[in-house]
């Protein structure tokens, strides 16, 4: 049996250990439960950990994504990490996949039919690819004939795109549908 004795050196170090083990983002609630901390203390320690990483010029950084905290590497080391991972193929999304993902992300929940009428093409295989990559998932069924599947983005989507929340998606400006060159004034 473990005897829980608080002999650890500091809260930031404890939280670093937890985030390291988890790999995926941990919510404040998960951190507090594991470390037996109050939310305020945990947040303070997280800020201190972030500051330490900055101050000491570490290879790691702390990010707040998908509603949780996650350890990851600093962007400047990317070339070396890619060299380490060598042949592993990069996950590059095609234009078709990005367009479909954008529609799901900004208009969720959407059906396959909604996406097809916007893109003007069939999207079955692209949808499958995005589901396989766990960027989108079935979030329910639309009421009505055929009860078509409704798609939405996943937590992995937020993590992969470094977003805190779906509302964190780049906003469109007020009249973003208008591009320079479009002369029509709003009616």
């Amino acid at each position, binding site marked *: 049996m473990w005897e829980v004795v608080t002999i650890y050196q500091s809260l930031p170090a404890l939280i670093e250990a937890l985030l390291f083990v988890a790999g995926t983002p941990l919510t404040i609630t998960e951190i507090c439960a594991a470390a037996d901390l109050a939310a305020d203390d945990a947040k303070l320690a997280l800020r201190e950990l972030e500051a330490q990483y900055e101050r000491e010029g570490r290879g790691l950084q702390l990010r707040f994504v998908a509603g949780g905290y996650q350890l990851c590497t600093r962007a400047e080391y990317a070339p070396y990490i890619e060299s380490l991972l060598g042949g592993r193929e990069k996950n590059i999304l095609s234009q078709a996949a990005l367009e479909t993902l954008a529609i799901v992300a900004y208009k969720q929940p959407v059906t396959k039919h909604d996406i097809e009428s916007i893109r003007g093409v069939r999207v079955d295989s692209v949808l499958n690819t995005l589901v396989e990559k766990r960027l989108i998932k079935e979030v329910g069924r639309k009421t009505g004939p055929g009860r078509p599947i409704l798609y939405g983005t996943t937590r992995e989507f937020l993590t992969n795109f470094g977003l805190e929340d779906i509302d964190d998606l780049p906003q*469109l400006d007020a009249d973003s549908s208008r591009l320079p060159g479009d002369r*029509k004034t709003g009616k």
Partner: protein
Amino acid sequence: MSYKVRLDNFEGPFDLLIYLIEKAEIDIYDIPIARITEEYLEHLSGWEYIDLDAASEFLLLASRLIEIKAKILLPAPIEDISREDIADPREELVERLVEYRLFRRLAATLGEIAQREGNIFTKDTAKSADWLPRERPLRGVSLSDLTAAFWKVLAEIPAPSPPLALREKKLNVDDKVEELSNILAAGDSSFLFRELFPTVCTRLEIIVTFLALLELIHRGFVTASQEENFGDIFIHWCGRL
């Protein structure tokens, strides 16, 4: 044709149409439908190979463009002229194009984010499963536990017992002939064929017993009879020994 853009470079009919509109620097809300239709059809004719699935989508828009062009060219019916709310035949198409163009821009934004994020790596949790992994088969097992387990195995190995000499039981047909004769002669009536075979016996024993029986029949000591196909075979002792 001065230029030829492969159609498979386009994500769909709207993508191609937007490309043509942007290239011509045309106001999307005021598309010169005749000119754009012509350019669009010109692209379709330059298609290098036909993928029927994709082609149908491009052709659908082509027919829609031609339909719109026709509506614009044809004079509106007299009774409609006075009405102010005549819809521009292009309106629905323009709405869809604008919406598509919006998502194409958003896709580009997501692509930029994806590229930026591609430089930030997280711990590969799938690969690191050997140190404090989700599954820790050796959780709570120390090196001394391992050594102790090995000691236990060593202690439990039984001391080798002295070799046990097994003598193979010799079987031959002559012995069996004599054995069968004794059994059959001692009985006072006929035997069932199957009774001659012990319930637990080796394949060799069965063969030897059968051969011995054939030998006894051959010598005329024994007769065999069967009342029906696949019925019991009766073995009768005729004596003479």
